[in-house]
Every structure is written in C-alpha cells, then in structure tokens.
C-alpha cells in the first residue's frame, strides 16, 4: 500500500480543486489571426521505438511510408502504417531518407543511444554510452525554466540487464535514468495542487523547512577540500533540484485520468501493458509542455532491443525482436523471410502510430499542436536487417509555423544530425542568433538543416 499516493489523492480530491481541468477545455486565450506569439512556448516531444519498421528493403514491400512524396492525404496514406494518422494529415510532416549519422557502431546496442544524440559510442557492452548530450537535454538546458530538467519518460518492462533505457544523455557518457511510473511522473509535475490555502501553506512551509536543512548541507559538501570533479558535479546537480514547492501546472487531468494514472503503478513494469503506459506518458508530456514546465520531453517506448510480446488482434505474440528479424529464436536464421511476420510487424507499427495519435489528439485539444512538434521515430530503420538507414520520421505540429505541414518530403543524404538540428532550431535553439546547424558530432555526417522540412525561418 502506497501511503504517499493515498495522501496525494486525499489532498487532491479532498480539496476543492483550485486548478482547472484541462482536458477538453480551452483554458487559453484564443490566438489572433496575425499573432506571432504562441500561447505555448515551442516544444519538442520525442517518441522513440526500437527494432525498426516494416518498410521496403529490397526483399519486402513497403507498408510504412506514404505511396508518393508530396501532399499527404488519404490517397497516399491508405494501406500504409502512417494511415493511423490520416485524420491529422494536414498537420504532419513525414521525412524519408534520414540515416543515422554514425553508421558503424552497432544496431540495438548503439541505435537507441545514437538517435537523439548523433554521437559515437564511448563504451562497449550491450547498451552503449555516447559522446555527447541528446537534443531533449540541449533544449531543456537552454530553454527550460532555470534548474528544470527536460522530462524523460519510459514505457515498458525493465530491461536494464540488457538494453533498457537508452535515449537521453546529459553529456558524454552520462545517460539519464527515465521516469517509468506514470503516476510518479504526474506527481512530480503536480507538486502543489489545489487545496485550501491553509493546507497549501503548510505544504509549502514544510518543504521550505526541509530545504533549510538540505541546502546548506549540500553547499558544505561542495566546499570540502579536494573534491573530485565527478563528486562535485553530482552534488551540484542535486543542489539544483532543491527548490520550494510550487505550482507547476496550469491545469490537471480529470479524476478518471488521475485514477488511471494511479492504477498504472501496478502495471507499468509489465511488457504487455507497454502501450497503455506509453499513452499515459503522452498525456503527461502534453500537460508538461502546455504548462511550460519543460520545452522537451523524451519518451522511450519499449526497451532499446524491444523483446516485448505485444498483443496483436487479441493474441499475445512472440518477442517483437524476433518478429522484427522474422525469426522464432536467436538461432533461427531461416533466411527465407516470412510474409506472416512482415504483416505482424506492420500491425505493430500501426499500433505504435495509433498510440502516438493519442498524443497528437491531446495536443490538438489543448490548442497547442501548432506551437511545437512531436516526433515519432525509431532507433533503427528497418526490421530484418536492422539497418541504420531511412529512419522512420513522422512529425506532427509546425513549431509555430517553422515546419512544413501536410507533406511527405525526401531528405536523401541527410542524417539525424540534420534532423535534430532542424527540430532544435524550430523550437528555439539558436547559435549566435542563427539556427542550430551542427548538433551532434562533427566527425559524423554533415552539418546543416533539412531545407525540405522548413516552411519559414524565424532566425
């Protein structure tokens, strides 16, 4: 029994809520037709899966991409995995031709670490560490309110013994541990919620009192003689998190959704509930960005090598990793291919995109979809070969009009360095007043933006 959680609901439900419910409400001022300022600060939400998608690779037909480049619509999306987002086709930007900048350092072991960093590996082992920060960290570091870390979430079973959390890096070799429990992530955001003034004041005063003990102790630790750099960094990081209790959110989820979140504490570690957990994380991500708590959110769905058994058409399937390789076990190398497994992989791609659609819907309901961008991608390109080429890139939202909408474009020759630079620039990262063009490692891939993605250049 989690006494802490019950206390939370008591203070939330027992209080006459001072915060509005966001879901379904337009609690924002309507934007004027000519307004440049967005209601929500530009944001980026990254949703990353593993094992690649079922796309054309010479041996298999393509079932992922729209049938032709150009304007998106039912005609070109029908029958393809991206059809799951056809209802939002006018707000999508799909980009082909983007490869991993770093090609020679593994697939599962590297892909999840490389996708948001475009950095080479600096360690061995099944889940590599890389040489630099990820884009979500960069956005948070430069654009978030002071001391607020970008949100880092994970949906799926705990595979830390092999390739579990991969995505977000604070710096070279410094992988960030994601929040897995949606309820804990929500509690972190809610902080101070509603309540009568006296109760709120008590909570604020208790936190301040605790901080009055903790902060000087951390400062004294930092003042110790001959402290190593890593000890110092560790304590500095801790000190930056010590702050007063404050109201972070501009609204709350409904009571039903909060109950869903609490219930997820019992199952968020279960592989079979991965997409349920992911859907909750996406609600939290949307809430965080519209509240201005974080300008970036990274959501990893499934372990870096995703061996989750997903339920497809009501049936629990084999490990997704095996399906993606079109095999039934690690030593099954029947190279004859499997149309049945191709279709299963395609069905799983659809399920993933349908879950992502929930995020797009929610951002749209909040009136925030045009203010930022949500990226859906994968740490690999295709399934059977685990190629690091032609990564699936599906973006929703224009980031305030910067990104083209309603288009499927080709970016041949581009790498994730270019993709990440473009997204970073779109949401507000600047270098000497100009766009960010060289995110990632200078020795891998070319710098520059993907012009085919850009509608307007506010830099």
């Amino acid at each position, binding site marked *: 029994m989690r006494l802490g959680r019950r206390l939370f609901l008591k203070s939330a439900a027992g209080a006459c809520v001072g915060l509005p419910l966001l879901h379904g409400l337009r609690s924002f001022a309507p934007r004027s037709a000519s307004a440049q300022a967005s209601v929500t600060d530009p944001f980026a939400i990254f949703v990353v899966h593993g094992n690649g998608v079922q796309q054309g690779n010479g041996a298999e037909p393509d079932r992922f991409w729209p049938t032709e480049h150009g304007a998106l619509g039912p005609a070109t999306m029908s029958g393809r995995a991206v059809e799951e987002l056809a209802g939002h086709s006018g707000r999508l930007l799909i980009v082909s031709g983007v490869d991993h900048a770093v090609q020679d350092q593994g697939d599962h072991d590297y892909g999840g670490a490389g996708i948001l960093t475009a950095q080479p590996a600096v360690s061995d082992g099944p889940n590599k560490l890389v040489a630099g920060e990820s884009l979500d960290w960069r956005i948070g570091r430069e654009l978030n309110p002071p001391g607020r870390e970008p949100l880092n979430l994970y949906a799926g079973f705990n595979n830390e013994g092999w390739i579990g959390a991969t995505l977000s890096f604070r710096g070279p070799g410094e992988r960030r541990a994601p929040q897995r429990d949606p309820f*804990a992530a929500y509690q*972190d955001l809610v902080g101070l919620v509603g309540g009568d003034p006296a109760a709120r004041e*008590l909570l604020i005063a208790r936190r301040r009192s*605790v901080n009055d003990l*903790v902060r000087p102790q951390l400062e*004294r*630790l930092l003042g110790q003689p*001959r402290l190593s750099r890593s000890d110092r960094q560790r304590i500095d*990081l801790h000190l930056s998190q010590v702050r007063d209790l404050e109201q972070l959110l501009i609204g709350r989820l409904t009571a039903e959704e909060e109950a869903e979140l609490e219930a997820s504490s019992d199952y968020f570690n279960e592989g079979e509930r991965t997409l349920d957990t992911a859907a909750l994380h996406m609600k939290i991500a949307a809430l965080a960005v519209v509240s201005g708590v974080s300008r970036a959110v990274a959501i990893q769905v499934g372990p870096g090598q995703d061996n989750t058994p997903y339920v497809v058409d009501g049936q629990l399937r084999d490990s997704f990793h095996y399906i993606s390789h079109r095999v039934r076990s690690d030593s099954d190398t029947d*190279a004859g291919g499997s149309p049945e497994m191709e279709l299963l992989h395609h069905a799983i791609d659809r399920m993933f995109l349908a879950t992502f659609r929930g995020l797009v819907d929610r951002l749209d309901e909040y009136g925030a979809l045009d203010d930022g961008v949500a990226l859906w991608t994968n740490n690999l390109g295709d399934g059977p070969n685990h190629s690091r080429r032609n990564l699936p890139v599906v973006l929703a939202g224009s980031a305030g009009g910067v990104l083209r909408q309603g288009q499927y474009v080709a970016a041949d020759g581009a790498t994730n360095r270019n993709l990440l630079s473009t997204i970073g620039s779109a949401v507000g990262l600047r270098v000497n007043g100009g766009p960010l063009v060289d995110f990632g490692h200078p020795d891998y891939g070319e710098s520059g933006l993907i012009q085919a993605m850009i509608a307007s250049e506010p830099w």
Partner: protein
Amino acid sequence: MGPGHAAPTVAPSGRITRLSHPQWERTVQDLFYLDEPTGLSDGLRPDARSGGDYRFDHHAESLTMDEGLWNAYLRAAADLADRVTARAEVLDRIGARADRATFLSRFAARAYRRPPSEEEMRELEAAYDRGPALHPELDGTAASVRHLLEAVLVSPLFLYRVERTVEADGGVVALDGWEIASRLSYALWNTMPDDELFAAAEDGSLSAEAGVAAQARRMLRDPRAAEVVERFHAQLLQWSELAGHIADFEGERAPVGAAAAARAEAGWFVREVVLARGGGLADLLTSPVARVDAWLADVYGVAPPADENETRELDPASRPGLLTRALFLVGFERGGQPDIIHRGLFVATRLLCQTVPPPPPDATAGLPPPEGDTNRERITNLTSAELCRGCHATVINPFGFVFEHYGADGRYRDEDDGFPIDASAVVQIDRQLTEVSGVGQLVDALIESREAHACYVRQWQEYLHGRELSEAEMPLVERFGEASRDEALSVEELLIALVTDRSFTARSDEELP
C-alpha cells in the same frame, strides 16, 4: 600470504556515493529497527545502467540524483516519517521520547553514520523546533519528531556516504573509524553499520587491521552477509536474466514454477557452499550438493524428494558445481536447443574475465543457413564466416561445446537427435590452449588456472568498492588469486583479506577526475 605486508594498492575513488535503492531500503529498515522492509524503494525510479562491463547494481559513478529521483526521495521521506511517527514502539526504539538533545545526537549519529558536528546539531534542533507549527495535527513532541525525521531522511548526509578525511601520508589517506565502519557495512551487509560496528568506530579498534578483521568475521555470520553473498553471485552470474528467460517458456519446455525453482536452487547452493561449508571458488565449481524439488530431481536424474525440497549429493562426475545446474543449463537455451554461444561467452567473460569484443556491425546479415545433424555442427556452421571465426572458433564456441552433454532441458544426454555427443574442445585458459572433454575436465582446468581465480577475486574487489578495478589493484588481485588457487582460500577468508587490505581501509591521495 600477508595482506598487511604488501605495498598498499590503494586506488583513486569518489568520496560522495549515493545509496543504491536496495541499500536505501535496507538502511531505512535498520535505522528504525523494523522487522520488515518498508517497500518504499519501489517508488524510487530505477537507476540507468552505467554501461561498460561493471556488473553490479551499485556502480558509484552512476548513482546520480535528478529531479525525478529527488521528488521520489521527498515523497518516500514524508511517507516513512508518517509511518514511524504512528508507531510508538518504533519511536521508543530510536529514542524519540528522550529529551531533544539526547534524541537528536543519538539519532543523527546513526542516520549520518557518524557523530554530528555542532553546526549539524543546530540545524537539527531548528528543524525539530519547527515541527509543531508544521504539523498542527500532531501533539508537541510527535510533531517535532515527525518533521525531524522527514528532514533527516532527505539529508545528503543520509542519502550519500561521505568520506571527509583528506589528510594523506605517503599518498595514502587513512580513513577514520566511521568511514571504515560505513565501508564495511555497505560492502558486507548492503546497509548501515549496526550498534556494535558503531561502537568499534568510536573506540578506535577499526584503526587496526585486527579490529577490522574481527568485525568482518562477526559480520559474515549475520544473515545480511548471506544476502550479499547471494546478491554478488546473482549479479555476476546473470541469474535474473536466466530465470527471466526460463519463465518465458514455462508451461511449454519447462514446467510452471521452473524459473523460481532453478533460481532458488542456485541461491541455496551459493549460501550452502560459501557460508555453511566455508567453501571457495573451487567448491562453487565442483560441489555436487543440491537442493531439489520434484522437477530438479528429474533433471538431475535422482529420486524425487519426499518433501517439497530435499538436500542431495549429486554425482560429482556429471554434476560438478554451478555450471551443471538447471539455472545455467536451462537458462542458456535458445528455441529448445542448448545455447552453445552464450554458455561459452559466459565462461569466457564471467569466469575468466576474458574480453570478447561485440559482433561487428553487420555480422548477423547474410548468415549461412545452420546446417548440421547436431546442435554443435549447426552452431559451428552458423559462425563459420570469416567475420565470425576469429572469436567464435577460438574462444566462444569451444567453451560452449563442453556443455553439449546437457540438453536444453538440463538433463544429461549421450546423444543429440540420435548422433553421439561430442563435448571435446580446445579452450583458451591462462593464454594456453587446453584440450578438454566435458564439463568435469573444464572445471578441473578452471580451478587449476590463475585466470579463473584472479577473475573471481577481481569481481569481488569491484563489488566491494562499487567501481571498476584500477591498475593499482592488479597486484592485489593477483596475490589473492594465487592464494585462492594454491591455498584453497575460502570466500569468507577472501572477503576478510580484501576488507582488511589497505585498499579498503584507505583511499588514494589522488581523487577520481
């Protein structure tokens, strides 16, 4: 062997180490003298894997604090303070009914794991005195205690193990008694010192090797040491991955409950051999003792137990030690076949500390179809490409071939699909090629080797220190590796030797960058 007589092999290390989640759970239980764990560490977000080859869950450099974890600690502290304050008997145990000064000095000394300074005492008094205003729902003393507990439980002096001593002599910083007490308790018990260990810190006996040895001997008799011994082997030998894999096919290729049974047997084996029987590495690899249920008895070819579980002596020729037990044999299977590759990799990397590079990036594209009459032939063909042979033919596969007498179900077999088993191989141990046939001969070669003993000692050293081995410690590892081999050093004696060595009771003057 004289651990104190050799040159100090102290290595650079960090001085501020966060408690791992299992350490936090255990520390909290012991801080309040609770009979059961609180379970509150479930709410602490899991740490990310550190990367690299470090195999244990308390890699010091990877235990960081971020926003999510800090919020989780704050919630857990409030939760726990509520629980404790509601239990009069717990408040009595921690001396909360005493006057403020007595309670604070005693509680803080245990929570901070050393006597608090005057400045720290003033901070604690201030927090205590603020309690009644912050908890109007509680009576005077209860309110003070309630708030004090919450503050202490998130104090960095509680959440981190801090080593403050910096005075060096000849490049070596001798730790004070409190620091040694903490190192000992977190190494051997995964928790805070107990009152006896604190007393030893206070009376100065930990500044002498004999004092440290005496405490270590006492601590190794405690159930918490048995948990650590099991945890070390579980993490080193990949037990949770193996059990997880078996659980995936329970009900098909293995009966329901097989994963738990195999895991329980492995844990029992290690505790029995190391702690009950005072064994060492050789015993872990050769002992035929087992604790079987009906399924395991069937796998091992012995009569079923009369009760749910029974201790047995298996045939030492066919069931020597950990490498012939169900968790290893059944856990390393793929698609109903013995997993030669991963059994082999396990021996090379986990028992011999050999470095095997990962497969080249495109190694698994265009593999030849696995032809062959036997599992051995198929795996040989599968890994016969030029790109693969370098590691597979010379290092990985040979270690795996010796296990072919044990099927994917763990049972002994003389045939594979009607063809006679060939369990012979030429393996690389101590940089020499050795011909072996079957697990018995492999085990003999391992326990006679320098490499296996040095590897085992090295892993314990890394475990005890929460970091990778440094160059400075290689002589230490070699010295105790030789003792382990030549003098059949028991694991207990090895641990006592490692924690009384200067590398444990002192720190290098040079800090980690």
